[in-house]
């Protein structure tokens, strides 16, 4: 335990550069830390603050990794040892425990206070709410306290998230909890998929990390397309629901110029035309981009036949440049338990294929590109459809089976 019972820990050392960050209207993490040190006398926090001041002076980071964990798990704690422990002995260890929150980052105060109370007992008192992947990060604990702290958290129903070559903690938008755009139960899907993969979250067994994010609709408020290997995005198959009276009310209020300049001309596929001064949506041309619905939420809403698209392969810079997820399942209903199991089955096959094929440190998106989309889809048992590409090939560098013969329908 890093907390000191006596008042000596409450004294702040000078941090002139950091103090500059107490100025200005936006909440200052430095002020927060200082308040906490003065409040609690947590010396680990003071040591970290001092080392941070030194980083600001020298423009260098001073943490290195190591191996810290809890019994039975291979992941979930990011270990940090100071490279200059002699200078800042109070900060010699500063490990982070990644805690998986509930889908949608919803909390009851009761459950959240459980965490705070336990963290006060064992940790630095610092938290990051939340990490970019979606973990509640308890930042700053020493090796000796990790297990006990975890056990107590675990008794209250909290568990560690992923790190390293694991399935990572998921993320999801607020979804059906509040949002009228949600096309499927994104929170439930998040809960079920991540629960299913719990073993892979805790024990590194994959070629590299694998992330899941769940957005209720194509507005993608969980940033799934860029930040998740598996992006589950709500969509619909039938027609946009239109309340004609609300459409006319919108035009009456905003004017025809506004309708043209902000709705009709903004549709990416010219699916909206002007007819007799009003709008008409040609739903077969609509790509479910959400724009018209976003502008006119009272008049328009997603259709009734709803489900998800699965986009695979989103990821950051390393090492082929940023990748956005690509459609691998255009549409899947996600209403029954069976539907859900179907989705999990497919993802399981994808992960299996990837585990077989991937090079070291190769995300599934890179692997698909290198090996070929068709091989990937075949392994996943998925049909190759044109929805998976924005257009067919534009070069002749392929070969078909020798007996390939297209069946052309006569369209008289």
């Amino acid at each position, binding site marked *: 335990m890093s907390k000191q019972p006596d008042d000596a820990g409450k004294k702040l050392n000078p941090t002139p550069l950091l103090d500059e960050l107490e100025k200005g209207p936006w909440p200052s993490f430095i002020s927060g830390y200082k308040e906490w040190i003065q409040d609690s006398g947590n010396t680990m926090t003071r040591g970290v603050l001092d080392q941070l001041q030194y980083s600001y002076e020298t423009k260098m980071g001073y943490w290195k990794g190591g191996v810290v964990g809890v019994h039975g798990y291979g992941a979930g704690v990011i270990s940090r040892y100071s490279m200059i422990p002699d200078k800042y002995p109070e900060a010699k260890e500063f490990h982070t425990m990644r805690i998986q929150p509930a889908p949608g980052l919803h909390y009851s105060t009761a459950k959240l206070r459980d965490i705070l109370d336990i963290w006060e007992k064992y940790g630095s008192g610092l938290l990051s709410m939340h990490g970019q992947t979606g973990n509640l990060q308890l930042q700053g604990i020493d090796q000796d306290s990790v297990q006990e702290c975890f056990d107590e958290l675990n008794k209250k129903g909290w568990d560690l998230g992923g790190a390293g070559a694991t399935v990572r903690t998921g993320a999801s938008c607020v979804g059906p909890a509040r949002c009228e755009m949600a096309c499927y139960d994104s929170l439930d899907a998040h809960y079920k998929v991540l629960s299913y993969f719990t073993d892979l979250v805790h024990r590194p067994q994959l070629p590299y990390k694998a992330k899941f994010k769940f957005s209720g609709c194509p507005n993608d408020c969980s940033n799934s397309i860029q930040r998740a290997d598996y992006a589950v995005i709500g969509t619909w198959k039938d027609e946009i629901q239109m309340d004609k009276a609300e459409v006319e009310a919108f035009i009456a209020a905003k004017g025809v110029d506004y309708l043209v300049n902000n709705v009709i001309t903004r549709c990416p596929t010219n699916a909206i035309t002007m007819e007799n001064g009003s709008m008409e949506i040609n739903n077969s041309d609509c790509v*479910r981009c959400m724009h018209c619905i976003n502008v006119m939420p009272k008049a328009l809403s997603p259709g009734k036949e709803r489900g998800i698209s699965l986009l695979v392969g989103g990821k950051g810079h390393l090492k082929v440049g940023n990748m956005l997820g690509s459609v691998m399942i255009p549409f899947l209903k996600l209403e029954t338990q069976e539907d859900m199991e179907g989705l999990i089955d497919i993802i399981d096959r994808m992960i299996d294929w990837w585990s077989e094929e991937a090079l070291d440190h190769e995300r599934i998106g890179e692997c698909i590109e290198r090996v070929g*989309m068709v091989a990937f889809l075949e392994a996943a048992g998925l049909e190759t459809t044109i929805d998976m*590409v924005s257009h067919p090939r534009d070069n002749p560098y392929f070969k078909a089976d020798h007996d390939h*013969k297209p069946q052309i329908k006569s369209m008289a």
Partner: protein
Amino acid sequence: MEKRTYKTEESGLHHHMEMLHPVSQKNYGQWSYHERPGPGILKHVAKSGDVLFTVRAGTHRQVTIPIVRRLCDLADKYADGHLRWTIRNNVEFMTPNEANVAPLIKELEALGHPVGGTGPSVSAIAHTQGWLHCDIPATDASGVAKSVMDALYDDFVKEEMPNRVRLATSCCEINCGGQADLAIVVQHTRPPRINHSILKDICEMPSTVARCPVAAIRPTTVNGKASLMVVEEKCIYCGACFGACPAMEINHPDHSKFAVWVGGKNSNARSKPSNMRLVCHGLDNNPPRWPEVTQVVKNILGAYKAGGRDWERLGEWIDRIGWKRFFEETGLPFDKYMIDSYRHARTSFNQSAHIRF
């Protein structure tokens, strides 16, 4: 040949001024607007007020001296001794005299030259050499072009398409016919057979190896002599090696098929220019009339004509309705070979939730 006395005048190309119709010369660069009084007829109005009518007619491209002489006769009679060809092998006659238009059209039609190809019509097919003249052809482009245009005659002489339609046909994958709204390109479907007996004498082996786009050619030894081999799993039958070395015999009586590509666009109108994309392959190479190819062309253009909006080029129509509906409405089967697997494959993936159902 006797000893040559003439010294070549390296004159390059003729200047255009002497070739232009006098009204063109006079109003050169000073045009105001144009109208299309009817299919095959353009009316350009100059800032000076001068008016110039153009009549456009289809030709065989592969023509003969008498055919061209007859066109010259018409030009002398109706177009003040001038005529031009378009980039699509149509012939054009210009006249300031509106009264010339109808009789000129009549005479052209009597000679078998359809008048049309303007505005939202299907213009003549850009085509290539084929069996008539080239050394790599898997088919006869002139024959294919003739067969397809017979079927599209009506779409040439009328202006009933959503926008102008450009077709091309090429007699090998090299595609001298270029990009088009719809391109008909024959493909070889087996690796080259290597003629080892001539290879050693005629082949510059390193260039031949370098010519292969997929690195399928390797040095090897045949009968103790340095030679080449083709890794069959890799080879995609493009025929490029034949261009470097005639011993890489790609031509074969049985192993060739047609592919159809759509959505090539050179103009910058609205959307950026775009490359054409593969929508059908494995069609029989079936002389003398290639009915399978014509069928596919008709399916595609029929659907486009029915569903395209004014000013939408073929590829833009697809951009609006989506590829899935394109395949549905044209009756063509989508298949996995159409998914790009070459250099920029990733950039063709649908990296969005934009999907049409």
